[in-house]
């Protein structure tokens, strides 16, 4: 019935990390490196964004919000697609670790989604005079946030972990199929109601330093997401695998420290 991926084979293939027992220590080793990378890139990004990049011709200094806004918007989209990917893998290969990965990603994706909306609003106020404008991208970002909240609410509402995994996977996949549909229908709807004039386009003249600053911040966001997800996966694994001996051994090791 279930291809038993949970017993750690000694094979050297990467598949052995599909077993929670093998992935747990690996995540523990990798996470700090990504966290460090994130801190470094944020430092460089802030320095580039604030101290090297010129002031924008039309928008003045407020455009500097772009560095977080764009990075967060990208991340909220990528993390959702990543969740859908892990959900698909989980449903096909029935490996519980894939479901755990999807659930570990969701909170960070939702956080970036909220950050994108928050910075979009704060950036919108001085540029068009209103905190919220039914711009196509902002509106689809809002709907994406609902998809995240739906996923998290569903996975938490179900006690039985296995049912929660599969239900979450299904809604993540159904949501992922609908993300492009929502985006284009909202874009059509937006141009219908307000015409193309009011839309949150990027600062027109993208000086290279601005572009580099944005990319660096995006990389920083990636590193941060990987680090925080790996940490969250570790505590999810501990909760899920508490019947196994290896968790008992792990707990012994942690007896004194916690």
């Amino acid at each position, binding site marked *: 019935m279930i291809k038993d991926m949970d017993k750690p084979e000694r094979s050297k293939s990467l598949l052995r990390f599909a077993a929670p027992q093998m992935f747990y220590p690996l995540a523990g080793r990798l996470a700090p490196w990504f966290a460090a990378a994130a801190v470094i890139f944020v430092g460089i990004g802030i320095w580039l964004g604030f101290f090297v990049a010129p002031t924008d011709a039309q928008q003045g200094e407020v455009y500097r919000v772009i560095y977080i806004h764009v990075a967060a918007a990208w991340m909220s989209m990528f993390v959702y697609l990543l969740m859908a990917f892990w959900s698909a893998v989980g449903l096909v290969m029935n490996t519980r670790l894939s479901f755990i990965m999807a659930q570990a990603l969701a909170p960070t994706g939702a956080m970036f989604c909220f950050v994108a909306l928050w910075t979009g609003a704060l950036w919108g106020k001085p540029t068009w005079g209103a905190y919220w404008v039914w711009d196509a991208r902002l509106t689809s970002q809002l709907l994406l946030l609902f998809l995240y*909240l739906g996923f998290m609410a569903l996975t938490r509402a179900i006690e039985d972990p296995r049912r929660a995994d599969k239900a979450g996977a299904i*809604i993540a996949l*159904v949501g992922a199929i609908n993300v492009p549909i929502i985006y284009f229908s909202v874009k059509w709807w937006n141009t219908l109601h307000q015409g193309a004039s009011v839309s949150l386009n990027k600062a027109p003249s993208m000086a290279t330093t601005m572009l580099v600053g944005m990319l660096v911040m995006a990389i920083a966001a990636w590193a941060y997401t990987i680090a925080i997800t790996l940490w969250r996966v570790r505590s999810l694994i501990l909760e899920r695998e508490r019947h196994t001996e290896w968790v008992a051994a792990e707990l012994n090791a942690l007896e004194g420290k916690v």
Partner: protein
Amino acid sequence: MSRALGPFAAVLDRDLLLAWRGRADVLVTLAFFVVVVCLFPFGVGAEPNQLRAIAPGVLWVAALLSTLLSLHRLFAQDHVDGTLEQLLLSPEPTVLWVVAKISAHWIATGLPLVVAAPALALLFDVEQSALGVLVLSLALGTPILALLGAVGAALTLGLRGGGMLLALLVLPLFVPVLIFGAGAVDAHLSGSGAQAHLLLLGGGLLGALALAPLACAAALRIAVE
């Protein structure tokens, strides 16, 4: 009751019979639709051309909410009395009777909305010509809502607080249907013609008919575990 024609006909007949015997629920859904539509003039003011402008959106949102409220009836009763288990153990493919169930549910709750919409539209003094497009857009749109809603209903089966969770899950998915449904009537009224919107709704319906039952069957299988 028809002779044993296999699960599709059996489930369709049974659910329609149940809907007929429990027609009070159908009337409640319809009453809710009418009440919600009538609330808007109080909130927005009875100024005619303003009402005429918001009429398609109001009718569509009310239809969407009515569908949402009736979704729990799709699987809840069968889940409680064990019929769902027996259906899942039927040798016939699960998708077959899931489509039958959703069709019966739409006939019992979606169709009445489509039939009632023109009458309510007159309350908003909507032009005669737009009524045809309104009915067509609802006739194409409400089945999509039923199909997508069925996936949400199956996922939240048996959960406490399932109603709110169901709304949170499916409303984002309903947005495109709402946009093109209400948009069709607006496009017709503005003279640019509603073909594009209606074609998109038709395409969406075919897509939902093909994919939603699969997701729904999978969700039911894990809900019963």
